[in-house]
């Protein structure tokens, strides 16, 4: 009985903290302006769409990995999947929830594009250092 109570509370609080944590990651990335070059590469013209997320993540995987970005992109990937689940289930009957999930999925794509820009800059720095040495 006690274990069941703890389980229910833990799962509820896990979702609360996880969603808020991911939104704090997204909020921090929104302030970063994407360069025109990365906008072109990622295919983000006016606003980021959830449909582009998988493609931007594929591009991310082509760049050298940076350990400090790993937890962020993995958490956002899990959040994106959670949003996809909500979108294909509960959001079908609640239109406002559908709009909200679309907006959040777009922000996930923007976060991935910001990470892509950082990785490209990191790769360029490494390349420049190699040329110098």
């Amino acid at each position, binding site marked *: 009985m006690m274990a069941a109570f703890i389980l229910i509370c833990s*799962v509820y609080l*896990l979702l609360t903290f996880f969603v808020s*944590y991911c939104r704090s990651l997204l909020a921090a990335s929104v302030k970063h302006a994407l360069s025109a070059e990365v906008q072109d590469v990622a295919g983000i013209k006016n606003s980021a769409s959830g449909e582009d997320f998988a493609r931007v993540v594929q591009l991310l995987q082509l760049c050298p990995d940076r350990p400090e970005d790993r937890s962020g992109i993995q958490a956002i990937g899990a959040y994106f999947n959670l949003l996809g689940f909500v979108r294909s289930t509960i959001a079908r009957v609640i239109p406002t929830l559908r709009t909200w999930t679309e907006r959040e999925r777009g922000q996930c794509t923007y976060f991935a594009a910001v990470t892509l820009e950082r990785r490209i800059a990191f790769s360029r720095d490494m390349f420049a250092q190699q040329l110098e040495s």
Partner: protein
Amino acid sequence: MVVCALKKRAFRRYLLLNLYMATAVVSELGRFKILAEYGFSSRQYQYFYYYSDAILTIFLYFALSTLYAHVFSEMNAERYVKMGTLLLLAGTALFTYAVVEQSTAKLVTHFVVELSQNLYFVGLVLTYVLWAAILKLRETRTRLIQLVLSLGVYFSLFAANYAIRNLYPPLSSVFVPLVQVFGLFLPLAWAYAFWRLPEDARLVPARLAVIPR
């Protein structure tokens, strides 16, 4: 995470968090040494694992109290936070003792394992209260908010894991190895917070709440 905090000159500001991580590294090294010497199913490894886990959980519990002190710093409530932390820890220990008292065999070991599990849940509830206080007080420090939220995710993962193992013991073979995966989350999330976010970064916490305020 400690290296990130040192590089970003945040080591002393979040001293207990960094000391917890350093202790966790030492504990992991000790576990690995004992695992290599005695094996996974040995009594030595199990004792070391559960006792070190209890010490680390108590350490993390005190680290959480320093996050409280950061949030309530302007209210000069540090003394009350310290007192509350100690009282709650004593209360949890007494409750745990009352629960395990019936089992006469290996009382101390049983107590240590139970205390660790209970502290994960108490830590989770306290983190939720702290998150509610952050929303209420409109705390805007992005790094502090991310440290609290990632700690909440970590505590809830462990509390849920222990609860499932108590409810369905046959599933332990699946959920015990998951502890190692969950354990990676906190150092990575804290390293990200120290490395990526400057101390003066700000955000509106009400925008992060699941239920808009």
